[in-house]
C-alpha cells in the first residue's frame, strides 16, 4: 500500500482497492468536479396505474427488486437501538440464498450485533459505515474483511450524491406509509419524528422499498418522502421497538461532572455574548448537551433573549423552549422522545431536516455553518484543538462520526468534555485518530475550566474579566495527567488498516488500525 502525508499531518493510503483516495487538503475542501450521480431512469408503465406498490413480504420484494450477490443495501438509523428492519432485511436475503452483500447503514447501534451471524455466514461481506459497539469491536480486532469507512451524516449524503457509493436497494423503515410509498416518520405506532437520514437513499438508490407497520389509505399527507421515489411497499408486524426508538421522556443527567461542564458551557456563551437576541444554537441529546440546553433555557429566560432557531436533537426540553417562545424554530435532524415526535407532528415551527439541508458539503451551502453555536463531545483533543471522536485512546472504534464533523462549522464550536475518562486524560500531545481540525474548534469546556483557541482573539477579549475559569489546554493536560499518574502510554496497534476516516469533502483524513490485545499484566 502506498502512503502520503495529508494536510493534517497524518499518513493516509493513496488507494482503497482500485479507488484512488484524495488526501485531506484543509478545511476549505477539495473543489469537486463533475455532475451529481443519478439512479436509473424508470417508466410509469412498469408500475401499477392504481398506485398500489404493495408486495406481500420483504423477501418477495427483494426478489422482485432483483437482489443479487454483491449488491449494496442501505437502511437508516432513526429507530436507533429499536431497529428491527436491518435484521429482517438480512434474514430475508439469507433465505433467498444471496451472499456477499455490502450493508450501507446511516449508523449502527448495539442491537445490530444481531447481524454478526450474517457476517459469519457470508451473507454480509462488508459494512460501509461508522462502526461502534459489538460491530466496532469486531472491526477493531481485524475480523471484518473490508475497511470501515467513517463518514459524517453530511459525508454520507455527499457520498450518495457524488456517486462514491451506489446503493442498489434502499430499505426505508416508514412509521406510516400509503400503498404508493408516500411516507412519514411523524405518525404511527413506531413514530420516530423525521426521516432525514433516508432522504439521500430515496433520491439516489436504484431501487427503494418502504417497509411499514402502519399502512394508511392513499393519500398519506403530509409526506416526508414522496412515493415517487419508491418502488415497493411492504407491510410488517413491527418495524421497530417503540420504547427504544424514542424514550417516553428524556431524563436529565445527575452526574455532577456533566452538570458542571454543561453549566460552564452555558455560562460561557452567556458571558461572552455568543448568546444574544436572535441567536441560534445546536445541541444533541447526550448527558452534557441536554443539560446545556436546559441551562441555556434558564439563562435565556432570565435575560429575555430569544433564539431565532435551534438545531436538534429535539427533546421535550427543546420543545418547551419552542412553545414558550424562547426558540423561533426547531430544525430537527433526529427526534429523541415522544414530546419531540408530538411537536414535530403538529407545530409548523418544528420541521424535519435532512443531511442535505443541514450538512452536505457538496451543496449550495448548508445550515451547519449558519448556526451561532454548536456544542459537541470528543474522545481526545490535542494542544492545537484538533480532536478525535471515533476511537478511544486505546484505538478501539467507539463511535460513529454522526453529525460531529458537520457541526464543527458553526460560528462558535464548543467541545464539552470531562478532563479525564476512566483514568485517561482527554487532552494529549497527539491524537490517536484525527477527526476534526483545530481551525474549526473554538472552545474546550471541561469540569476544570475553559480553554479558548488562541485563533479566536474575539472570544478571548469577550471572555476577559467575566469571572469564567479560563485555562490553557496545557494546564488542563497537566492537571489531568497529574491525577492519572502521568500521560497514557501509546496504544498497541497492528500495521493493518481496518478503517478510514474521511473528511466532509470525502478526502482521506486518517486511518484506524487494528487493535492488538493488551500485553498480559502480571508478575
Amino acid at each position: 500500500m502506498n502512503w502520503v502525508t495529508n494536510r493534517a499531518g497524518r499518513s493516509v493510503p493513496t488507494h482503497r482497492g482500485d479507488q484512488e483516495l484524495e488526501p485531506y487538503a484543509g478545511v476549505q475542501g477539495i473543489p469537486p468536479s463533475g455532475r451529481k450521480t443519478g439512479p436509473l431512469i424508470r417508466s410509469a408503465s412498469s408500475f401499477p396505474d392504481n398506485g398500489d406498490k404493495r408486495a406481500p413480504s420483504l423477501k418477495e420484494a427483494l426478489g422482485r427488486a432483483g437482489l443479487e450477490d454483491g449488491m449494496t443495501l442501505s437502511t437508516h438509523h432513526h429507530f436507533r437501538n429499536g431497529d428491527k428492519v436491518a435484521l429482517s432485511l438480512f434474514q430475508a436475503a439469507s433465505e433467498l440464498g444471496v451472499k456477499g452483500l455490502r450493508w450501507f447503514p446511516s449508523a449502527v447501534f448495539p442491537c445490530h450485533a444481531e447481524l454478526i451471524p450474517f457476517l459469519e455466514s457470508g451473507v454480509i461481506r462488508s459494512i460501509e459505515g461508522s462502526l461502534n459497539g459489538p460491530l466496532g469491536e469486531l472491526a477493531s480486532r481485524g475480523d471484518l474483511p473490508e475497511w470501515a469507512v467513517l463518514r459524517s451524516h453530511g459525508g454520507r449524503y455527499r457520498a450518495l450524491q457524488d456517486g462514491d457509493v451506489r446503493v442498489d436497494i434502499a430499505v426505508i423503515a416508514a412509521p406510516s406509509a400509503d400503498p404508493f410509498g408516500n411516507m412519514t416518520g411523524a405518525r404511527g405506532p413506531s413514530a420516530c419524528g423525521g426521516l432525514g437520514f433516508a432522504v439521500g437513499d430515496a433520491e439516489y438508490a436504484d431501487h427503494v422499498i418502504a417497509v411499514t407497520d402502519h399502512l394508511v389509505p392513499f393519500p398519506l399527507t403530509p409526506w416526508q418522502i414522496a412515493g415517487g421515489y419508491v418502488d415497493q411497499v411492504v407491510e410488517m408486524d413491527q418495524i421497530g421497538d417503540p420504547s427504544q426508538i424514542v424514550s417516553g421522556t428524556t431524563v436529565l443527567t445527575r452526574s455532577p461532572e456533566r452538570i458542571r461542564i454543561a453549566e460552564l458551557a452555558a455560562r460561557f456563551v452567556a458571558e461572552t455574548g455568543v448568546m444574544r437576541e436572535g441567536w441560534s444554537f445546536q445541541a444533541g441529546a447526550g448527558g452534557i448537551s441536554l443539560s446545556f440546553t436546559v441551562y441555556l433555557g434558564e439563562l435565556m429566560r432570565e435575560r429575555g433573549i430569544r433564539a431565532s432557531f435551534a438545531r436538534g436533537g429535539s427533546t421535550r426540553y427543546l420543545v418547551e423552549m419552542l412553545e414558550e417562545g424562547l426558540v423561533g424554530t426547531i430544525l430537527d435532524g433526529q427526534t429523541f422522545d415522544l414530546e419531540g415526535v408530538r411537536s414535530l407532528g403538529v407545530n409548523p415551527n418544528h420541521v424535519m431536516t435532512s443531511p442535505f439541508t443541514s450538512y452536505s458539503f457538496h451543496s449550495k451551502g448548508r445550515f451547519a455553518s449558519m448556526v451561532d453555536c454548536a456544542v459537541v463531545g470528543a474522545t481526545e483533543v490535542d494542544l492545537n484543538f484538533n480532536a478525535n471522536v471515533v476511537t478511544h485512546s486505546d484505538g478501539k472504534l467507539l463511535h460513529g462520526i454522526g453529525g460531529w464533523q458537520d457541526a464543527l462549522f458553526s460560528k462558535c464550536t464548543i467541545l464539552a468534555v470531562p478532563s479525564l475518562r476512566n483514568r485517561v486524560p482527554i487532552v494529549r500531545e497527539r491524537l490517536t485518530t484525527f477527526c476534526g481540525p483545530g481551525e474549526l474548534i473554538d472552545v474546550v469546556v471541561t469540569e476544570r475550566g475553559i480553554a479558548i483557541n488562541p485563533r479566536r482573539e474575539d472570544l478571548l477579549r469577550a471572555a476577559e474579566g467575566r469571572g469564567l475559569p479560563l485555562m490553557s489546554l496545557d494546564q488542563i493536560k497537566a492537571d489531568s495527567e497529574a491525577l492519572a499518574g502521568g500521560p497514557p502510554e501509546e496504544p498497541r496497534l497492528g500495521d493493518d488498516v481496518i478503517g478510514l476516516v474521511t473528511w466532509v469533502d470525502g478526502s482521506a483524513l486518517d486511518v484506524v488500525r487494528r487493535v492488538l490485545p493488551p500485553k498480559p499484566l502480571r508478575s
Partner: protein
Amino acid sequence: MKTRVGASGPKVRADVEIEWSSAPKFGYEVDSTVATLYGSAIRAQIEEAATRYGNPGLHFRCLDSGALPFTWAGRLDAAFQMALGLERPLPEGPKRTPCRDRRRRSRLYVPASSPKLILNAPVSGADALVFDLEDAVAPEEKLEALHLLAYTLRDVSFGDAEIMVRVNAREAGLEEIRLLAHSGVDLFVLPKVEEASQVEAAVAVLEEAGGESLIFPLIESAAGVEASYAIAKAARVAVMSLGMEDYLSEIGARRTESQAESEWVQGRVLNAAVAAGVDPLASVVAGLEKEVVEEYAVRAKLRGWRGVGCIHPAQIPLIHQAFLPSAEELRWARRIVVAFEQARTGAIQAENQMVDRPVVDRALRILAAEESR
C-alpha cells in the same frame, strides 16, 4: 475471613478490587480497562508497594476499572496490611491550618469508600466536604475506606473546600483520629456525642499525636441535647450540629413539613452553639427536589443556622443562593467595615455594638459572599 478489598463490576468506575491468597512468593495478575494505556504505571505501583511490605508470599488478583493512582495506593495498602495482619502509619497529608471561623454554607457528605463519589467532590463547589467513615461505609469496609481516605487527602486537590472527616463512634473513632492525625484533616466530626468527655478524649488523642485538627460534635440524642452547651464549650470545638433523623427517632417524633416537631430542639442546639461561640450548622436536607432544598435552606438561614448539610452536589447551588446576604445584612456589613476602617484602633463603637475583630470579620464575610455571587 475477608480476602478482598475494593470493588469491581459492570457499573463500577474508577476503582480496583484486589483479592489475595497465599503463595510461595509475591505475584500478581491484573485485568484492567486501561491495561494498554497505564499498564506500566500499574505495574510500578504494585511492585513498589510489594517491596515496601517485603515481597511477602501473597498472590494478588486485581480487577481494575480505571482506578486512579491514589485509589490503587489505598487498596494496595489495605490489602497488604489486612493480608499480613499488619498496621502501619497512614501516609501524611498536606499541612492544613484549621480555621474556626470560615464559610460553611454547604457541607457535602462523601462516602469515604467510593472513589467515584470522591472524584465528584472537587467539582461540587461545596464550602466543606465531610468524608464519611461512619454511616456511609459498611462495617466490613471500614478499614479499607480508611486507607483510601488517607491517600485521597494526600493526593487529590479539593481547592478551597474545608476538609472534614466523620469518624465512627466511641473507641473506633478515637483510633481513626489517631491514625489520621497528620493526614490533612481540618475538622473531625464526632457522631452521637452525649458528654463533653467524649470530645475531651478526642482532643487528648490529637494532642498526643501532635495533630492540629478541630472538632465538630454531632448532637444526635436526647442526652446529647441536654449536654449540648458543655459539649460546645469543650476545647477545640469549632462547629456543632444536630443529627435530626437519629434524634427524632429516639424521642419518637415524626418529621413533618412544618418542622413543628423539631422547633424546640433546633433552637436549643443552635443556642448552645452560639452561646459557646461555635458555628451552628443545620442538619442534612432530605430531598433533592429544587423547592424542597430551597425552602429548607431559607428556613435554616432565618433561624440562624450558618449552613446546611447535603448529600448531592445538585443541592449546593440552591443552598448557596438561599444563604446570600439580604439587602439589610449588606447595608449593616458595609457600615461596619467603613466604620472600622475609619477608626482603625481596634475596638470602636458603631451601630450600638462593640465592633471588635470577630464582628468585623463577620461583616467582611457577608460582603465577600455578595461579591462571589
